[in-house]
């Protein structure tokens, strides 16, 4: 065992690695090798203990964790319940952290002894445990007090954690060196210490073609993300590179404008999401076909998801028939009841019913970014097959975000990533925007349905998974009926490793080298 590998990350510059500030998936995939969480996601995407060996819920608002003994940080500090308490309380005080919302409902954190950690919530928060995972959750990722207090600015770039690897060297825009942490607590089933690898050098290779050429010539042994058109070439095996398409909880859809932002009902409400008091008058005197539920259902039926997957993604995606993505293993169903399925005949009928019978039936523009371009191009063709004339408005990321909250497009390419709980997408993106709190704060398409809001609130406040799933299903059915989003796909990230490199942990899109080894 042992050995070192070179890896490639498709990224320009990995700046921040302080988990309480990290917001990009490529950063998550790096830091989850450096840190421990209170809990983590295992290979099947199930939540299991990390620093906590076990936990219980004495009641709906209390989490009690049993913390392992003998864990240390990379700098030698002891990791015990009080160290974790400090880490959580640090996040609670970070106004500028994107994750502060996740700890907003914490009333208090207690560490009565070294192995007991108790978190008291002010109200039941069902997804709370997912926030405490070390990867995507981030809130429960444990940072080191000494190092943070010494120099918080430096800590952003040179984090000290307690994970299987420590960051020993970094050179901006080029590479990061992860060295095996000798005092890592975990051992394999035979008692060998983990990790097996001595060193992982992460090279930043933002250019997809370069990444591909590097892994095929053995310049790197692992690629965090390969270009799908190349990855498809090696699928089926036989070559020197293995490719796994993994879901990082990503989903993608065509969001449809459900209401006129300037209408009496929405003029003020839209501002809770957009922050813009003056709603657009782009729709004045025009009809917005997508405000009709039948039209939205028709659009959802016009999408041939299988074709989309093969043409636009070169196979690296799953067709999406509903909003719950495969990374939410406990709630995901491939085709729930009333799922959004391809049915162009029915789509045409619905459009006829809605009164759109012309040629074209109606026209509208799709807003998206250059990364969406392939998908948009295929969607445009599919919509035209049912008589909808879609023009493509491809905007750079910055103008895309400016435009999307102006509500001046009928269709928007939209999606999310790292969603490991149904609450994550639904609450901010589909619930009615409210003046207070985060409900509907990310509304892109001005959707509102009281019953949906209600089901969602219940699902949020019910930590018991068996009860909770009922509310999740209820909300899902309303979503499918109203079709505010025409779901498209759950994209998969093609991760590549040379055949000698085995056992990299790719659950929910991570790249964990924790148990990875090189075959002789």
């Amino acid at each position, binding site marked *: 065992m042992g050995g070192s590998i070179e890896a490639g990350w498709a990224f320009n510059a990995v700046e921040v690695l302080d988990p309480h500030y990290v917001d990009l998936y490529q950063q998550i995939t790096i830091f989850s090798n450096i840190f421990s969480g209170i809990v983590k996601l295992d290979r099947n995407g199930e939540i299991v203990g990390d620093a906590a060996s076990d936990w219980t819920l004495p009641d709906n608002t209390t989490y009690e964790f049993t913390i392992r003994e003998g864990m240390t940080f990379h700098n030698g500090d002891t990791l015990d319940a009080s160290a974790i308490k400090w880490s959580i309380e640090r996040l609670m005080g970070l106004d500028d952290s994107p994750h502060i919302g996740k700890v907003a409902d914490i009333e208090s954190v207690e560490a009565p002894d070294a192995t007991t950690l108790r978190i008291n919530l002010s109200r039941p928060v069902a997804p709370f445990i997912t926030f405490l995972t070390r990867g995507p959750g981030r809130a429960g990722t444990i940072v080191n007090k000494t190092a943070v207090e010494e120099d918080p600015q430096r800590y952003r770039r040179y984090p000290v954690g307690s994970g299987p690897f420590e960051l020993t060297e970094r050179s901006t825009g080029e590479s990061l060196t992860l060295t095996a942490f000798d005092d890592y607590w975990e051992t394999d089933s035979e008692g060998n210490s983990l990790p097996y690898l001595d060193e992982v050098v992460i090279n930043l290779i933002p250019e*997809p*073609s370069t990444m*591909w*050429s590097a892994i095929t010539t053995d310049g790197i042994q692992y690629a965090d993300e390969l*270009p799908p*058109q*190349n990855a498809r*070439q090696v699928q089926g095996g036989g070559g020197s590179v293995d490719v796994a398409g993994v879901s990082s909880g990503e989903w993608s859809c065509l969001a449809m404008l459900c209401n006129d932002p300037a209408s009496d009902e929405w003029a003020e409400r839209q501002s809770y999401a957009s922050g813009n008091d003056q709603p657009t008058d782009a729709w004045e005197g025009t009809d917005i076909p997508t405000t009709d539920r039948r039209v939205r259902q028709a659009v959802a039926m016009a999408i041939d998801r299988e074709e989309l997957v093969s*043409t636009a993604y070169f196979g690296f995606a799953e067709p999406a028939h509903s909003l719950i993505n495969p990374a939410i293993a406990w709630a995901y169903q491939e085709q729930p009841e009333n799922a959004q399925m391809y049915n162009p005949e029915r789509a045409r009928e619905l459009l006829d019913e809605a009164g759109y019978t012309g040629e074209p039936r109606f026209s509208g523009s799709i807003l998206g970014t*250059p990364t969406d*371009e*392939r998908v*948009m*191009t*295929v969607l*445009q*063709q599919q919509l035209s097959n049912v008589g909808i004339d879609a023009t*493509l408005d*491809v905007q750079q990321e910055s103008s895309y975000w400016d435009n999307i909250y102006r509500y001046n497009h009928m269709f928007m390419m939209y999606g999310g990533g790292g969603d490991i709980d149904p609450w994550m997408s639904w609450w901010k993106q589909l619930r009615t925007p409210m003046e207070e709190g985060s409900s509907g704060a990310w509304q892109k398409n001005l959707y509102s349905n009281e019953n949906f809001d209600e089901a969602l609130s219940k699902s949020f406040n019910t930590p018991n998974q068996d009860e909770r799933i009922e509310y999740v299903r209820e909300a899902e059915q309303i979503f499918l009926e109203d079709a505010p989003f025409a779901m498209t796909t759950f994209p998969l990230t093609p991760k590549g490793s040379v055949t000698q490199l085995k056992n990299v942990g790719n659950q929910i899109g991570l790249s964990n080298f924790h148990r990875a080894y090189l075959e002789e």
Partner: protein
Amino acid sequence: MSVSDLVESAFSGSSESGKTFGIRSDLLERFIKTIRRDLRAKIGFLVVALFGLSAIFAPMLAPYDPMSQQFPILMPPDPLSANPLGTDSFGRDLLSRLMYGARISLAVGLGAVTFGAVLGILIGLFAGYYGGYIDDLLMRAVDVMWAFPWLLIAIMLVAIFGQGFWNVMVAIGFAYIDDFARLARGEVLAIREEEYTMAAKSVGLEDYEIIFEEVFPNTVAPLIVQFTIFTARAILAESTLSFLGLGVKPTTPTWGALLGQGRGFITQAWWISIIPGIAIMVTVLGINLFGDALRDAFDVKETGQT
């Protein structure tokens, strides 16, 4: 009817300019003679005509809808198949896309140079004719323009005003303003003191009349040469911008955009990027040959502005 006859008839309509004081009346004659005699001009003219016509009549000539994703993706070229030039990564027919692409690429090229020429020539004419502080002011502005490499100007303009046919045209054409301005000014300075200009002044013509009726026609020869050669450059510029993803709407087929879309497939589908490149090369070569022949015919000195 031979090629040169065609050209002759095409240009004969506009030859009624003999009434002005001192215009070189042999201009058109030379032009036609060149095409008749010069092999380069013939080849160039033929190529340009061929591509121009296939662009204009693309809707009739193209075998398929250039946007329709009806074939298997990434099919290699096969002259005997339904897609003689293969298909792209969406399963669209490359030949049809190439023909439609010619329309935008050629139109942007021509439009860009026209824009640059009109503005540049106006600036140059006024600067040269009036001299003094007007000249200074205008030429300083031109100097500043010149301090930006063309691509930089184009990228900034597209970033500010957005992608689109007219914006890209202007963005590319902008870079030619200074060249045209310098050239026009130089020519004006040379003929300002000539007899016919003096004569025009002495009979009391207005300044603008003198500029547009006397001075301008006499700068035409070098400007035509410049125009031709810049059109070739502008087509290359359009292809570069589109390749960078900053051209006309990203989804519109233009030669450069076709090339750009092939970039991710270089190692598995060479034809997507190679074939549009050949189309660009042949067209630009044609225009360059034509321009070169014109240059010889008009006796314009090569200034390296190719």
